[in-house]
Structures are given as structure tokens and as C-alpha cells.
């Protein structure tokens, strides 16, 4: 029996050597293929953007020659004190927002994954809701709640005779709204990492006499540091690119961020795209430095926590304190989900948003379905919902496959050129949506064939734009799988694809599903690149929403946002249910 096994194993090894010789070119071909795909999706549009920043014309319309390129335009922009002040404001607002997001997101992840707080499943789902809310809508909802004169919170304070007033038309207001809306990003990264962590590491610390807090500070958090840093960096960078929140809350206080500045440049008649492109390049440099710092911070350490051993994440028994964590979680959900949703419901159902005082809020004669009727009378509303779903699914599938291919190549293989692939993949994160939209237009419209004007051009733009987000989300879960799991499969004679199919994919499934879901949500919310790439047959929800908002009809805007939130919530519940079912029926998780 033993001899047979040995000979089988030797036979396997020989075949493997043979295979290795025959297919030694394969990794190179694979790397080349990925680089070609990335060149099309990322390098080519980014190059168009750089050309835009270094010239003064539209590179497609006016053409360009190398002699036209000059850094004069770029230097003028860089020397403009207003750019410096917008950059500083962006750094303050997004930096503050990120700190708040990390604090909330991490605490929330810890409460949900590692404690015995009651109803934590429900809390976890509700905590993700802000992700479905487009930033513009978040801004509008908080303006209704916290504007200095007529904000509902201030009306309530006045009613209760309290002298205290809030003013969200301020830097503090933006930091607050950024923080609470991007906490789910940090939560997603850190919760997955906490869930996939082998508790024996913490047990070892405790056996050695460390207290619970010390264990957390010296073992738990350091181990999930890549996830914390990824979440922190990603939420910071995403905030840097957000237009809606500073447009609604910053503008009345005359606080310009880079995005509102860029939007003004693109909307100006005549538009100043070259200047906008230069500002975007500045943003890219800032982001590039941050990504480099992140790489430096996590390089050279091992974060492997999922090994081929059975484990269950431990839940800390908080005793009576669990009601305190429950209370805090409910407070968070009340502030982040309930309050703004109530504001949106009031806006969507109230004929007009003039509310003199708190009793006027409950005057039911002021409420009606008028905004919903008007919205659905417009045939573009339903069309845009259908189109968005279609593009969202295309994006999630194509982007999911590509991200997995890239994530796996970067984190699990020795493929030549994987560092370059990693770097290219990170580029789009740094480019604000409005500018990348015009870069895609410039880059792809000239291609022969019928890509322009189709759903595919939108889907490809979204895949490219959100590749960094999905690859990061996937890599985090891939980095945690111990090499020994794959090695076991190889030893048993599985090839590379077989190993991926039977070991890696099932184990990384939460990450893959999370990545694809994230992609779907981001694609549906994405406004900047849609604005330039949609055509008369491919109008999407985000563009339609901006149309309603720019038309000055807050009622319809709120009604449409509610419809969008409900749709996304239903779809995501369905995906969750689907992935859970698949996971249960799939390969056992306990190695």
C-alpha cells in the first residue's frame, strides 16, 4: 500500500516536472495578458489624462504633438494659491473623516465579530446601509437635518428650549458626514479579517498572562493591521474623490475641496478640462505617496492567520457590558441610518420642505405621493433603473473575474511582473471620477468598432475605476490563506486551476462575494464616469438622479434615492443569502 502510494506520488512528481518544463512560458504569457488588459483599461486612459494636463486642448479633437506638451499649464495650476487651499481643505476634511471612520468602523467590526453583543447580525446588516446612499443624497439628507436655520435637529432643539444649535454647513459638518458614511468601508475590511483570524493566537497571549485589552492591542489589532491600513487608506482616498457631500455642505460656507473645485472647472462654460486634469494629477501624486506608505507599512511581515486548522472566531463574553455595546451600536445606527432615512422620507413625501417648527412636521395634509407619481410618470426613471442593474451586474462579473485573477497573481504566485501589475492596478484610485470619465471618453471613443454608446463602455470604465478597491478587498482575504493549503492540493496532484477551484476560491469566497457586491454598489452609484459615457440608450440611475437634483426638485431626488436604497438593500440581502447558501453547500471551511 505504502509502496503504491510512493510510486504514485513519484509518478505525480515526474508529470509535474514534465509539465513545468513544457509550460515554463505560461507565467510570462499570463503576465503579458494581464498587462495588455490593464494597459487598455488603465494606462491608455491615464496617458490621455496626462496629455490633457500637459496641453491646453482636447487631445481627441485638436490632436497633439509631442512638441505641444509642456508643463506650463501644470505649473500654473500647481502655483495657484486656490489649489493649495482646496488641497489643504481636502486633506483636513478627508483626514478628519478617515480618523472618525476608522474609529467607528473598527469598533463596530469588533462588536459584531468578537463580542456576544445581542442582535449583532441585524446590527451588522444595518450598519452597511450608508454604503447604498449616494454621497449627494447623504449631503442633502444631512442638510435637511443639520442646516443652521431650518435643520430639523435645530428645530427640535428650539422646541425643547435648548440653546445649543448644530451647523453642518462647516468643516466639522463635512468631517462628521464623511466619517459616518465611510465607516462601513473600514468595517468591511476589518470585520473580514477579524472573522478569518485564528483565535489560538489570542489564546496564546492570554495563556501567557496578557489581559484582554493587552491582547487586543498587541495581538488582535497588529494582526489585522493590513486590513486596517487598507480600509483607512481606501476610505481616505475615496473621500478625496467625493463630490456630493462637500458640494452640499461645504459650498454654503464657501469651503472648496479639490472635487468641488474640479467640478466647477468641468462645468464652467467653456469647460477647463486641462486645468481639471492638472488638479487631478496633483491628487494622483498625493494618493501615490499614500499608497507607497501603505506598501512600506505592511511589507516584510507575515499576516497569515488562516492555516489548515479548524477554528471558530471567539466571541468575548462581555457580561452585562454587552448592553452598553448594544446601546452604542443602536445609537450609531440611529444616527447613520435612521435619522437621514427619516429626513429622506420626509423630503420624498412632503409636498415642500418648508417646515416652520416641529408641530408643522406632523401636519399630515402636507404629505402625498406626488413626487413618486411624477417620478414614475417619466419613462426614463424605470429605464435608468433597468440599465443600472444591467451595467452593475456586467461590472460585478467582469470586474470580479479580473480582480480575482490579478489579486491571486499578486499575492499567491511568483509570476514575473507582478509588482508592476500591482502598481498599475492601484492607479485609478487616485483619479477623481469626473476627470477619469473624460479620460475614458478621450481614450475609447477613437477605437474602431462599436464600443462607444454601449453598456460595455460603462461596465469597462467601472471595472477599471474600481479595480483597486476590489483587488484590495480580495487580496486582503487571499493574503490570509496559508500557503500550506494550496501546497496540500498540489501534493495531491491538483494543477494550478484545480487548486484555485477547489481550495482558494471556496476559502476566499467571503472576500470574493464582498468584492463583487462592493463593485456592484459602486457601479450603481458611480456618477463621474457615467456622465461622459452614457448615451441616449444607456442612461443610468446616477445620471438621472443628478438630473433631478440639478432640476431643483428635492422631493423627486429624495424619492428616487429611497427607491435606489430599497432596490440595493433587497439585492444585497438576496446576494448574501445566495452566497451563504453556496458556502454551506460548498467545500467545508474547516480545512
Amino acid at each position, binding site marked *: 500500500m505504502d509502496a503504491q502510494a510512493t510510486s504514485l506520488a513519484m509518478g505525480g512528481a515526474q508529470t509535474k516536472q514534465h509539465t513545468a518544463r513544457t509550460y515554463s512560458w505560461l507565467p510570462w504569457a499570463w503576465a503579458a495578458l494581464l498587462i495588455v488588459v490593464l494597459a487598455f483599461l488603465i494606462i491608455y486612459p491615464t496617458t490621455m489624462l496626462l496629455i490633457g494636463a500637459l496641453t491646453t486642448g482636447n487631445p481627441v479633437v485638436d490632436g497633439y504633438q509631442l512638441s505641444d506638451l509642456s508643463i506650463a499649464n501644470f505649473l500654473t495650476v500647481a502655483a495657484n494659491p*486656490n489649489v493649495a487651499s482646496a488641497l489643504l481643505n481636502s486633506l483636513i476634511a478627508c483626514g478628519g473623516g478617515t480618523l472618525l471612520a476608522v474609529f467607528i468602523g473598527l469598533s463596530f467590526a469588533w462588536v459584531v465579530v468578537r463580542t456576544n453583543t445581542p442582535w449583532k447580525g441585524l446590527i451588522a446588516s444595518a450598519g452597511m446601509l450608508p454604503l447604498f446612499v449616494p454621497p449627494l443624497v447623504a449631503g442633502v439628507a444631512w442638510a435637511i437635518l443639520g442646516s443652521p436655520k431650518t435643520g430639523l435637529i435645530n428645530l427640535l432643539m428650539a422646541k425643547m428650549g435648548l440653546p445649543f444649535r448644530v451647523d453642518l454647513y462647516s468643516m466639522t459638518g463635512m468631517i462628521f458626514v464623511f466619517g459616518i458614511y465611510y465607516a462601513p468601508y473600514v468595517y468591511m475590511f476589518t470585520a473580514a479579517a477579524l472573522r478569518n483570524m485564528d483565535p489560538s493566537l489570542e489564546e496564546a497571549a492570554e495563556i501567557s498572562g496578557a489581559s484582554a485589552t493587552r491582547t487586543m492591542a498587541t495581538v488582535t489589532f497588529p494582526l489585522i493591521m493590513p486590513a486596517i491600513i487598507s480600509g483607512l487608506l481606501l476610505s481616505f482616498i475615496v473621500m478625496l474623490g467625493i463630490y456630493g457631500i462637500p458640494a*452640499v455642505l461645504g459650498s454654503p460656507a*464657501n469651503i472648496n475641496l479639490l472635487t468641488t473645485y474640479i467640478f*466647477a472647472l468641468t462645468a464652467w462654460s467653456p469647460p477647463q478640462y486641462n486645468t481639471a486634469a492638472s488638479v487631478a494629477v496633483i491628487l494622483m501624486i498625493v494618493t501615490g505617496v499614500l499608497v507607497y506608505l501603505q506598501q512600506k507599512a505592511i511589507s516584510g511581515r507575515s499576516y497569515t492567520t488562516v492555516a489548515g486548522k479548524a477554528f471558530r472566531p471567539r466571541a468575548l463574553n462581555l457580561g452585562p457590558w454587552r448592553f452598553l455595546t448594544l446601546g452604542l451600536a443602536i445609537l450609531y445606527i440611529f444616527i447613520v441610518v435612521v435619522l437621514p432615512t427619516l429626513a429622506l422620507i420626509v423630503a420624498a413625501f412632503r*409636498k415642500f*420642505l418648508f417646515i416652520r417648527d416641529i408641530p408643522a412636521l406632523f401636519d399630515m395634509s402636507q404629505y402625498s405621493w406626488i413626487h413618486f407619481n411624477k417620478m414614475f410618470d417619466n419613462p*426614463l426613471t424605470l429605464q435608468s433603473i433597468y440599465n443600472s442593474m444591467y451595467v452593475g451586474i456586467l461590472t460585478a462579473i467582469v470586474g470580479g473575474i479580473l480582480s480575482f485573477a490579478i489579486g491571486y497573481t499578486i499575492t499567491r504566485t511568483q509570476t514575473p511582473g507582478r509588482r508592476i501589475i500591482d502598481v498599475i492596478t492601484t492607479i485609478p484610485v487616485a483619479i477623481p471620477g469626473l476627470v477619469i470619465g473624460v479620460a475614458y471618453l478621450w481614450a475609447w471613443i477613437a477605437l474602431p468598432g462599436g464600443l462607444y454608446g454601449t453598456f460595455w463602455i460603462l461596465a469597462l470604465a467601472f471595472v477599471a475605476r474600481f479595480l483597486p478597491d476590489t483587488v484590495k478587498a480580495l487580496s486582503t482575504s487571499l493574503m490570509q490563506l496559508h500557503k500550506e493549503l494550496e501546497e496540500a492540493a498540489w501534493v495531491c496532484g491538483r494543477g494550478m486551476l484545480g487548486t484555485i477551484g477547489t481550495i482558494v476560491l471556496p476559502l476566499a469566497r467571503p472576500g470574493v462575494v464582498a468584492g463583487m457586491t462592493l463593485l456592484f454598489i459602486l457601479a450603481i452609484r458611480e456618477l463621474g464616469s457615467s456622465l461622459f459615457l452614457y448615451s*441616449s440608450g444607456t442612461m443610468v440611475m446616477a445620471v438621472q438622479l443628478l438630473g433631478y437634483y440639478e432640476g*431643483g426638485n428635492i422631493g423627486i431626488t429624495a424619492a428616487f434615492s429611497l427607491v435606489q436604497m430599497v432596490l440595493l438593500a433587497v439585492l444585497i440581502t438576496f446576494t448574501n443569502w445566495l452566497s451563504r447558501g453556496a458556502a454551506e453547500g460548498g467545500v467545508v471551511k474547516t480545512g
Partner: protein
Amino acid sequence: MMTLNRRHALGSLAALTLIAKYGPARAAKPFQAPASLVDAAKKEGELILYTAAFPEVMQDTITLFNKRFPGIKVRMVRASGGQLITRVRTEASQNKLEADILDHSDRAQVKSLEELFADYAPPNAADYMPQTLVSPKIWPTITPAWSIAWNTELVKNPPKTWWDLTKPEYGDGKIGQVIAPSGGTTWTRAMFERQVLGEDYWPKLAANKTKLYPSGAPLSDAVVRGEILIAPLIFNIVYPKKVAGAPIDAIYPKEGVPIIPYGSAIPKSARHPNAARLWMDWMLSDEGQEHSLRDQGNMTSLKTPPIAPPGFDPKVDKLWAPDAKQFESLHAAWLEDWNKAFGYRQ
């Protein structure tokens, strides 16, 4: 002080011939499209409209057009000013311009694309005010106008003139306004203020510490909510709210009403040229302009409006349209001055 301002304003008026008054009332001419055009348009069955107007408003117009001419599906691509121009220029350079009609609030920008457009003039071309036309190919299907709006629940003594806005009683952030660099529409108002109301208008208005908004939509919403009490707003954003019963009203000030005649044109590359022609003929006809006046609170660039514009007394009120050349030549320098006057960082 007031006399000086008036003299100043009158001086500016004399210098410019762009102040226009509507002609005496006349009966509206019914719209009669040639049967051959209607048939050809129906055969094409479709029309792609690129517009900078609000989608909700355009949708109403499309519905009305379809009632009149069923069987022509109008598909709309909507983007704000600068973004729409970028799209059109880029698409056109690659022979991929999808539009059968381009509608834009900035006539100067449309004129810069003049070579893209086919020759076109509506049957009633002679009825249009010459100062609203920038090219024989480009026509003002829509003509919005500036007004002063206020919250009727909170303002009991509303301003009646542009100069009233500089009174201290409306100070301390009660007034909101859209930043002048936001686009052609606001730039028209800024130009009017400086040319007609005088050089000292901006500093005096700025002394009232106006709140600045990036575009008209959030500002009109802020007036309804009572966050802002008074604001210069395009009447077509106020009018539907007022009709629906919102606590907002507006007047056309006596010193002049700045109008923004749109530039609409049919590209040579239009794949549905007959449908496009029918749409333009209808929009520019008395019937189409009556719809724009009555249902949407716009003005018209017709010499004589087919119905009296709501809230506008043609006997007393004056229109003002910017000089097309100055509209471009003064743009950069004056906006810089505006930004300084109102402490806006561009």
C-alpha cells in the same frame, strides 16, 4: 445716492442697445407642419436630443410634443453646460455624434461649433428678435429669465428691484446667490449687474454678505426651506414650485430682466433630420413658445410673445440680453473681479 445710481444705470442703458421690449400683443399663429415633413419624421420614428436643460422640464415638453406628433420617440441625453460641450466636441471629432439636436444655454459655446450644424431656419424666423440670434443656424428654442425670488412665509416685505437687494434689511446672509463662474446663465446676470446697475453694485451687494451656491437648484431649494430668504433665481425654477403651492414667489425687477436665449441647432450628421426639423419648427412656433411661457415660466425670444409671460408686464418690464462679443471678451477679467468682490475662491 439713489439718483446717482439711477443716472449710472441710465447711462449704461444708453450705451447699450440690447435692452428690448416686447411688441404689442397679437394673436398666436396655430402651428401647421407640412404633411410631408410630419410623414418623413414619423418614418424616422426617433429623435435624439442633447440638452443642457433640466430633464424633468424637457420631459414635459417631450410629452407634449408626442401628444401632438405621436410615433416619434424622443431620447434625451442631458448634461450640464461644460460637460455637454466636451461630449459634443469629442463625439463629433470621431464622427460619432449621436445628436439630432443640440440645446445649450451658452450661445457662444454653440456658436463655436457652428461648422457642425446644418442650415436651418424656422418658418417664423422673421418673428425672432435679431439680438437673440448669434448665427443663422442657431435658434433660441428656450429663453429663461432672471427674477428675484423669496420665501413668502418668512419675507413680508420682499425686494422689488435689483438695488433693493443691497439694502441693509436684507443683510447678514439672508440673500443667497449662485456663483458667477458657474456658467453662461449666471455670467449673464453678473454682466447685467455691472453694465446696467453700475460698477458699485457688486461691492454693495457683497456688503450684505450673500451666501454663495454652486448652482441654482440647491439655492431654490434653500429658499423653499427658508434656509435662504431671498435669491436671484431663474424664473423657470421658481415657477413650477409656486404653481404647486410652495412658499416661494418671484418678481421681474423694473431695472431689467436678463434673459438667456438658448442656442439650439441641428447637426449635419443628424440621422433623423426630419424629426429634428419638426421638433425645432414646433418648439420655435407660437405654439411651442406658448408652452414654454405658460407651463415652464420661461420668456421667449419672439418679438411679440403669443401670450403674456406670467408675472411680466410687457408695457413696463424690459428685457436685457448680453452683447454676444462682450459675453466672451469680458468673461475672464470680470469674473475675476466678481470673485474678488464676493470673496469667492475659484
